[in-house]
């Protein structure tokens, strides 16, 4: 019985991310394949690249990437090939075209705005005369001396 459970469990074990048998013999080509696949999303997983994913579909996509590379495609052509079939959802780094320009510019724009606002604030702070600093009351002075003595 225990044997049976064991066998069943081993059968249920999922495939692995990047198996030895799928790797290409040419190290340069393999490195390019890894580079591409770490930027492609596994469609059935939650926020994982196909390079990290254990899913069957991710394996198919990894093999597809390698197939295209072996066939002589450039990195861009390979990515285009996959985007054409699966949509831009597979890209973990969204392209800057169309509305996505907002996404890419959000950081720089916000930094610019922050620096300008901060600059205005600083200028005002450094030019306004010092407002009266609140004077301590007598009781507070006593308390201060007491604390300093501690």
């Amino acid at each position, binding site marked *: 019985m225990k044997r049976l459970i064991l066998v069943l469990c081993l059968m249920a074990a999922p495939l692995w991310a990047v198996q030895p048998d799928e790797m290409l013999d040419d190290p340069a080509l393999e490195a390019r394949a890894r580079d591409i696949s*770490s930027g492609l999303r596994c469609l059935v997983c939650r926020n994982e690249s196909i390079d990290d994913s254990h899913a069957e579909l991710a394996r198919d996509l990894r093999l597809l990437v390698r197939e295209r590379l072996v066939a002589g495609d450039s990195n861009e052509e390979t990515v285009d090939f996959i985007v054409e079939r699966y949509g831009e959802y597979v890209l973990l780094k969204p392209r800057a075209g169309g509305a996505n320009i907002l996404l890419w510019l959000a950081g720089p724009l916000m930094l610019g705005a922050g620096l300008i606002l901060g600059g205005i604030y600083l200028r005002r702070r450094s030019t306004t005369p010092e407002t009266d600093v609140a004077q301590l009351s007598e009781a507070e002075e006593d308390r201060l001396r007491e604390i300093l003595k501690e």
Partner: protein
Amino acid sequence: MITELGHFALILAFLVACFQATIPLIGAYKRWPGWMAVAEPAATIQLLLTGVAFGALMWAFVTSDFSLRLVVLNSHTAKPMLYKITGVWGNHEGSMLLWVLIVALFGASVAWFGSNLPPSLKARVLSVQAMIGVAFFAFILLTSNPFLRMAVPPFDGNDLNPLLQDPGLAFHPPFLYLGYVGLSMTFSFAVAALIEGRVDAAWGRWVRPYTLAAWVFLTIGIGLGSWWAYYELGWGGFWFWDPVENASFMPWLIAAALLHSAIVVEKRESLKSWTILLAIIAFGFSMVGAFITRSGVLTSVHAFATDPERGVFLLAILAVFMAGALTLFAARANVMQAKGVFSLVSRESMLLLNNILLAVAAFVVFVGTIWPLVAEMAFDRKLSVGEPFFNMAFTPFMVLLGLVLPVGAMMSWKRATLGRVLRQLRGVFALAVAIAALAWTMQSGKSALGPVGLFFAAWLIGGSAVDIWSRTGRGAVGERLRRMTRLPRADWGKSVAHAGLGVTMAGIAAMMAWQVEDIRVLKVGEDLEIAGFGLRLDKVERLNGPNYIATKATFTLSEEGREIATMYPEKRNYPVAQMPTTEAALNNGFLRDIYVVIGDPQQGGGWAVRSYYKPLANWIWGGALLMAFGGLLSLTDRRYRVAAGARRAPATGVPAE
């Protein structure tokens, strides 16, 4: 019976929170001392009742009471005791109960330790904190009741997700929640100050310990989570820019900004309205985090409750609190006049720069996280925003921050001379550049990231050392060393935390630039070579754990022909949960980790083996620990204890009106 008691206690706690949310607020408005004072016992009772409810749930888990739906879904009799206990918060309902327990705990801590607070401010703080409590008690009772019974209790449970059955992850949620919910305290202080119409140096001093504590907890929580991912997920990744990771990272960034701007409020009475705004936003991000994790609008590896009804409820809580607080802010912002005057080159202006960089960095993470949602709703485009985007968009802010940090940290308040600070840091800068150049020449054809990381490590650690040294004044070395031991802990905390940031930066950069990976098929008795280390597969065996079956491999690790360690990576299968996990074997070193994972048996014989050389891996978490330790040092600074001692001063009772 105990379950029903717990349920009843939870309802009572809700009612007490309702009472605490209203009565003291009216009391503070009408200046009725009695009505204000009830906030304190109410906070204590609320904590006790929530504690009883939490204890009852824990009891059900520990005794494996399978008449409780939640226990059936998340526990099993064969599960080790540690994970029966931590299983209480390894699910949506239980974790929400932990959340409200911490809300009540923070509230009670103000009631117990806040005796130097003005009574009206204290009453208002406790009242706002109770409002947060009310919202989340209602959320639990209406949508996620942990005390639901089963009509027909099953014989055994479904077991906890095996990935969560790990010490690193068992303690990751409580720390995160302490951090998230700690920010509710700064939120309460901010809203109370707005109602009160007074923000001064004293307010900054009361808020800072809570911000610091929340930030320290968040640092530890995030560090634990990332460490867990590193050794558990099987390829040594430590950060994935997953929506839920981002949800914890955004409050961390804002809390870091807040604890710096609160210094300016405390010491110089400037940046007040900005600090209040940050305090509101920080808790906002905490709730956004809760929403993202539990609503399922953004798919993530962490989401454990994908229920639209709960999502809507949480969104409503978020909307009400943010809209309320921001409206109040808009109405009251004019009462917060800045007092301090400072020049363009000063500590104040550098802290402002720190705040801009941290806040914009958090904003970038936020935009990246919600962009898939925005793009789908507004532009009808289904797209993903993942690691490559965040690495590109976020890193520049950290680079800028790292560059200016040592300079800013050494500026004097009010008016500083840039030349003097730069002169003091000249040596450290030269050293950092030299180290980076050395690394650059020693590596061939790899990315510039590694040397840049080392530059920042040397620059930040060296800068912190110079900062501490410069505070000892002038004189003989021995005299200065003696003075160094007597510096305020806040100074030490600052230097340690800043150095920690440098250590973490070096670790991340080295991992990304110099990691070596090897994937191959290995037969028993064969060996492989990775980055100068030898790994021999000695044997592979099957064995049974308490609630899993494992395939365990034995490797011998050798360096220059000398055997230095034996490593046992495992592949486990949890039959009840029907889930496999990988248990990587690690050989930790100061400068590198060796990381081995055993995979599936191959058709032609042999096993799939992945091995990694991970340079400076432990620096990532070591740096996080240093940052947390720096925060703790600062938290135990004398001035907070002196402030606490003010209790002993003659009580003046309620201020005469």
